[in-house]
């Protein structure tokens, strides 16, 4: 499954018209063509993957970027020619591979009966060839809702650039709207985002609470980076300015939730907790807990988006940001319980699913480079709980105390929000060193195998 960066799913789709079916087939074909492009970018041996010359130092790149800012542009490949660093835009570097992708999208646009969607496809197709990704993002955010088909394609996520967290990797997903689940989650989103949280640095806060869209998709294809990360939910765009103006779109992928639950979360749950404790939860409790944890994580990003946190925390930003969103997402459940919107059992299931997911990341997925930031975040989370006494360990088995866990998560959420709103890279580094030690968690290894 992990060799080639492509996953084809076979979901039960809602009824589609013949035209929609034809468009969908073309989009899937376009998605498949992303694979060779991503393979040119991917390289797990180097922190900077194939975005920068191998073996180059951060200082060299930073120095060259002062004279030529395009070196640290999210959409350029950097090479060393004649002792000089040269940046080439993606759409030029990969032109030959991108042309067939773009052609497929133009074909789909030509036959689609849905005018706004066709228009969006044309802008997406054009952006692949001229590098105007901002136009493609704006079109994707604004033109299709609530259209049944969805395509996200292009250089988007930055997780493969572990040197600077700047360069974007190509990826694609194609989905079909799951109307019922979307409506259910939209209701949840409206409840959560309708209350206002106090922010630590109001002048730095990016406020787009009223412009958050959510959709749950039946996914047909993941290709490129997302086929490696196997995300269950994503929150785009990544550009803070676009987010402020156009809001954000959260997409939840049902197929990856089912896959990750079955292969990672449920087996980890069964190995990490005692048989007596496990009797308290059904697999349905944990699967729902896992899905809700992801949804809450994506919604909580809205509370934590500060203007300069990426600049301040640099390459450590994704570790703090992703963990921050997960912990804040769970913290928000406190007020949901008190208002009878969520039950105690649901909150417990969410916390347990998140614990199981992190144990699995650390003990069984630590060599998967695309999940590095999440693995470090999970390590911090579990060490924090162990150190605060919220979770006890005996013979590789975990014994959680839910009340202490919730108090610890509350504290951890405050620390992470402080780092995101006003912390420096040095602050983040000290914090990660303090809690990011994976060795302390190895005693769980025996139980997890």
């Amino acid at each position, binding site marked *: 499954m992990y060799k080639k960066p492509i996953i084809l799913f076979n979901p039960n789709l809602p009824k589609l018209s013949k035209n929609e079916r034809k468009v969908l087939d073309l989009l899937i074909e376009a998605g498949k063509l992303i694979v060779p492009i991503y393979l040119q970018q991917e390289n797990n041996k180097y922190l900077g993957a194939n975005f920068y010359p191998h073996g180059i130092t951060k200082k060299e790149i930073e120095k060259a970027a002062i004279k030529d800012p395009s070196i640290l542009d999210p959409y350029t490949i950097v090479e060393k020619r004649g002792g000089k660093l040269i940046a080439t835009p993606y759409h030029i570097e990969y032109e030959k591979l991108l042309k067939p992708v773009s052609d497929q999208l133009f074909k789909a646009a030509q036959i689609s009966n849905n005018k706004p969607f066709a228009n969006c496809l044309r802008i997406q197709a054009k952006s692949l060839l001229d590098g105007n990704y901002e136009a493609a993002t704006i079109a994707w955010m604004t033109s299709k809702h609530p259209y049944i088909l969805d395509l996200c394609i292009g250089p988007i996520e930055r997780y493969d650039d572990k040197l600077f967290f700047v360069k974007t990797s190509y990826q694609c997903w194609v989905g079909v709207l799951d109307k019922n689940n979307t409506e259910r989650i939209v209701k949840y989103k409206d409840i959560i985002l*309708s*209350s206002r949280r106090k922010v630590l640095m109001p002048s730095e806060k990016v406020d787009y609470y009223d412009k958050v869209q959510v959709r749950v998709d039946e996914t047909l294809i993941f290709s490129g980076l997302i086929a490696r990360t196997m995300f269950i939910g994503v929150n785009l765009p990544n550009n803070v300015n676009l987010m402020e103006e156009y809001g954000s779109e959260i997409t939840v992928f049902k197929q990856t939730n089912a896959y990750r639950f079955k292969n990672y979360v449920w087996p980890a749950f069964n190995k990490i907790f005692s048989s007596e404790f496990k009797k308290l939860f059904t697999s349905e409790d944990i699967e729902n807990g896992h899905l809700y944890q992801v949804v809450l994580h994506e919604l909580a990003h809205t509370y934590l988006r500060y203007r300069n946190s990426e600049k301040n925390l640099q390459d450590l930003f994704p570790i703090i940001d992703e963990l921050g969103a997960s912990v804040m997402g769970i913290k928000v459940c406190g007020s949901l319980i008190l*208002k009878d919107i969520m039950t105690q059992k649901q909150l417990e299931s969410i916390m347990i699913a998140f614990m199981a997911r992190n144990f699995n990341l650390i003990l069984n997925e630590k060599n998967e480079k695309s999940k590095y930031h999440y693995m470090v975040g999970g390590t911090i989370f579990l060490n924090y709980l162990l150190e605060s006494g919220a979770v006890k360990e005996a013979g590789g088995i975990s014994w959680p105390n839910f009340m202490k866990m919730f108090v610890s998560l509350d504290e951890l959420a405050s620390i992470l929000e402080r780092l995101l709103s006003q912390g420096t890279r040095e602050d983040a580094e000290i914090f990660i060193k303090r809690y990011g030690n994976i060795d302390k968690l190895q005693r769980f290894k025996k139980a997890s195998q």
Partner: protein
Amino acid sequence: MAKIVKISSRKKVYVTSKGLSNIKFELEFLKKEKRTEVAQRLKTAREFGDLAENSEYDAALDDQILIERRISRLEEMLKEAQVITKAPKTDFVVIGSTITIEMDGEVDKFTIVGRVEADPSKKRISNESPVGAALLGAKVGEIVEVATPIVRYKCKVLEIK
């Protein structure tokens, strides 16, 4: 405090007059239309023969059970209902108050209603929820503790309408 018109001495279900008419409307609809409709479906399905492998009959029977359960629940509600007439303006929280609170660094505004009418997506929170129960009787500026076995927060009343 809100004036409460007592209808029954059984366990109380607080409803507004609008909520009460909604219950009555739904009950009438179920009794007069849905009951007849499902009875007709059962009759038609019986005519198909063998009830052991008759999916139309099974589906209609399931619907009938659901409808009868709902009718019985609504009738219970009517017996237990205590209608809240429009509350006189008070300086403390009552059922029917729209309040702004601060809790766990979050400012939220909602109306406290009886559990039958609770709908968090419309900012209507049940008087039987932990926060609803804790806030009844609280005044502006007052801080009350709201707790469950896992969550324990302090909640400050900022405004009562």
